[in-house]
């Protein structure tokens, strides 16, 4: 049986084999910090990561990539050689917050909204994805968890360092909340991160090292001298996360972090979040809200689906798949709603919904997705998009739920 460090090293070796320098660099940097390698190794990892990031901006040629690959391989070997001193084990994931039946009611002459009771547990290293349509209470829940909004009923218990805390001043230092609309900051990004690190207590050389680690780790090397107005929305968010990470929060809360990111940036961010949660040094509990269901589901350990202020689903995806017996398919092609209805009229519990981009078809477990696909092909339906969302909470958007 391999140890944790060996797992990580294997993971990096695999990245290097696939010439994925980015991932390899990130994970190697993580490993040097997670396992408390000595300063020279950490510096080397930072330096290589810096070289990689800088090269990305300039447009790296193949030879340079090969050289970087060699350097990384060499560094990895050094890390492997030092392995015996790094026999760190994954400790038990502790509960950081217990949310017990919290609810909230907003009353006004124009609009009433009742966020119904919900219970959750935030654990170290866990990612909770909060999904649901707009106006269903995602932000309300996040604000209550981070202590920005008081609950009407129920309570939230916070446990940090094994102790229960009720002092909001302390609790808020342990929680990083990144709202959808980011608050503007001034000066350049590097100075801002360095300032945050200084307030946290990182002075002198430690400050520089911390800032370098965060900046290079988050792929911000080439943007560190930029100001708020010069940064794109995606990089503003990354810097915001970087600033939050300097504080080494126990709980990281992100409200719609994927909203302004392209597909690649979304994947990169989600992967970073996963790595943060898996960190050994500071395994953060992450809770994020998003509309990007598929992307969130890939990294989340637990999904909470909110509808009209109540959680219609609250658990992990495996439970959801087990719970849901029917089949739900997203489909599009050169056919109409009527064509589908005619074709499937004899199927049990058939339900066809049409949205702007596709049809969502649900049917009972008596039929399989393969059977459905064969039927379409047999009737010469030209398919341009097909996705089985039976195991995804996306089906909860359907009116059926």
């Amino acid at each position, binding site marked *: 049986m391999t140890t944790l460090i060996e797992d990580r090293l294997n993971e990096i070796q695999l990245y290097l084999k696939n010439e994925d320098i980015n991932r390899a660099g990130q994970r190697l940097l993580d490993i040097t910090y997670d396992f408390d390698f000595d300063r020279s190794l950490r510096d080397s990892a930072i330096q290589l990561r810096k070289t990689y990031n800088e090269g990305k901006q300039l447009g790296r040629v193949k030879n340079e990539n090969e050289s970087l690959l060699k350097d990384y391989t060499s560094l990895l070997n050094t890390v492997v050689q030092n392995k015996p001193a790094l026999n760190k084990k994954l400790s038990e994931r502790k509960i950081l917050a217990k949310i017990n039946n919290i609810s909230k009611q*907003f009353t006004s002459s124009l609009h009433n909204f009742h966020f119904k009771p919900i219970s959750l547990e935030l654990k170290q290293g866990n990612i909770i994805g909060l999904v649901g349509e707009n106006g269903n209470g995602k932000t309300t829940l996040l604000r*209550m968890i981070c*202590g*920005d*909004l*008081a*609950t009407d009923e129920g309570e939230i218990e916070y446990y940090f360092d094994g102790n229960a805390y009720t002092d*909001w*001043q302390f609790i*808020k*230092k342990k929680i990083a909340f990144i709202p959808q609309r980011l608050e503007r900051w*001034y*000066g*350049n990004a590097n*100075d801002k991160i*360095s*300032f*945050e*690190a*200084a*307030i946290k207590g990182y*002075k*002198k050389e430690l*400050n*520089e090292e911390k800032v370098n680690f965060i900046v290079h780790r988050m792929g911000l090397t080439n943007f560190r001298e930029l*100001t708020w107005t010069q940064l794109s929305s995606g990089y503003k968010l990354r810097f915001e996360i970087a600033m939050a990470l300097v*504080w080494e929060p126990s709980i990281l809360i992100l409200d719609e972090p994927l909203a302004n990111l392209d597909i690649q940036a979304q994947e990169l961010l989600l992967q970073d979040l996963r790595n943060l949660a898996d960190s050994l040094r500071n395994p953060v509990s992450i809770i994020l809200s998003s509309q990007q269901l598929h992307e969130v589901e890939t990294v989340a350990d637990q999904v909470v689906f909110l509808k009209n202020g109540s959680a219609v689903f609250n658990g992990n995806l495996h439970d959801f798949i087990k719970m849901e017996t029917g089949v739900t398919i997203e489909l599009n092609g050169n056919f109409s709603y009527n064509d589908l209805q005619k074709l499937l009229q004899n199927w049990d519990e058939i339900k066809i919904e049409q949205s702007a981009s596709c049809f969502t078809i649900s049917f009972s477990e008596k039929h399989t997705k393969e059977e459905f696909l064969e039927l379409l092909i047999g009737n010469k339906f030209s398919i341009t998009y097909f996705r089985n969302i039976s195991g995804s909470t996306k089906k909860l958007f359907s009116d059926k739920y």
Partner: protein
Amino acid sequence: MNFALKISPPFLRKLDAYLRINHSWIWTTRIHLHIYIALLLSVLFASLGLVYHISINDVPSVNDQNTFFGLLFIPATVFLIYMIYQMALFNTDKSAAYRFRYQEFSILLIYLFTFFLPLLIPYPASLILNGRISNLVSDNELQRDQNSFNEALIFLPVSNASFYYYYPSDSAYLDTRQSKTFRNEYYDAEEAVNTDDTTISTRRQWALLADSIYHHKGVFKNTRPKLYYRNTRIWSKNSLYGYNTYMTNDLTESTAESNLRDSLFLLYLDKINIVRDPNEASKHISQICELLYKYTHFEGGVLDQKTILNDFLKHSYSESYCNNYPFLYNKIYTSTDNITNIYRAKLRDDINAWDKNVLFVLFIFIFCITTIFQIYKNVHWKQVLLGAAILAILFTLICIIEVVSNFDGKFISFAGAFLSLLFLLTTIKGFFIKKFSWVLNQMAVILAFCLPYFPLIILAYLDQHHHIFTISYFDKYLEPFKSHDGTISWSYNKEYRELVTLIWISTFWGGILSYVFIWNSYMKTLFLRFWNLPKTK
């Protein structure tokens, strides 16, 4: 602050980085950059003070200097606004976790200093300009010129009522007491426009003296001298130049010395006005011509000193030489203005002579700004505005009740003390609540406005309602006072009044210091708690 850093020398950038990393609580105040910009502006302004055109013929007046100072205040005010903006931008206290608490005392002092900076910026320019004016003429030379000018001005017969008034020789005499007397109809016509008390009193005196014009004796007996009315504006202590000491006083002499010298000088003028010694007159006319050449742009040619002398000796002012030179009147004014302006510049050179009350008012102004900024730093800006509005409404209501009910000032002190105490005690609840309360938060904002003056409010209450300054302890300061009708009453002596003033001043400063040392940190802790509590909406 990119702009400030861009124009900063390398050492300042290093300092900025050093402070950011090692003393971030100082870094957020931006004091290092503000001092730098203030220095830059001071140097720039000082150079303006250096290039400002001045000459002995064209000396900027005090008003000119004040205008110059005022104009420099515009960029200084812009700088103040810029500083406040920067301090607000880099204020970390609005973020829940990024707050400093223990450095609050030092931060308050830094803010006080910071807000002083823009007000100090125009001073170097003003001082330099003033110094340049002051150094146009040495002290001794100016004194000499002043004296020469005063002594000689009487010999320059400008027939303008503003300077001299000529009384026809057959209308003016000297009585036995050497007082001037005039015919009734004369002063009636000339003085009718003046209705102030002095004139009325003078009229009465002159009316009485009018009857005695034929009774003159003494040194001028049987000579019927021609007398000239000296317009007091030229040399009087109440001259239009505004300075009591102008023209006759030495820069360093005491008031008693100057009074004595003034009286001797008056006698001297009386004498030379009546005893018309051609040699004396010639010497003085020569003196004043030189002074006019020196202190004005004299482009009207050379003054004909002989004609002036003849005019003086003949008393022919209505047809005098000077009438042919209308510019002379302006030249005299210009030269007296220039001498006055140099004299004033010399007085302003002495910083010890500056009005200390100005500094006090300045401090209070700065302290108020600092207090407001300290509050703003800890709460939402809307809450600061709301707090100020509530405070204004409360104060207005209290004043209305006071005036309508005629409480003789007692209600204001009572309401002030009561509300301050009420807010102070109520806001303690803030340490125990679980949810944010905007009422308590708003009370805390108002309390923070009032706390520096809290001891003063309490003292006012004790004075108004409990007459604390008339308790038996102060009886030792009572002294008997005998009135005109012989009755004896007791009143507090000067020492008592000084003591009471001292108590008020000490209480005021005690309030300021208690805010700096105690309340500021207390309010910070309270605001920190409020800020971190979950809100209801």
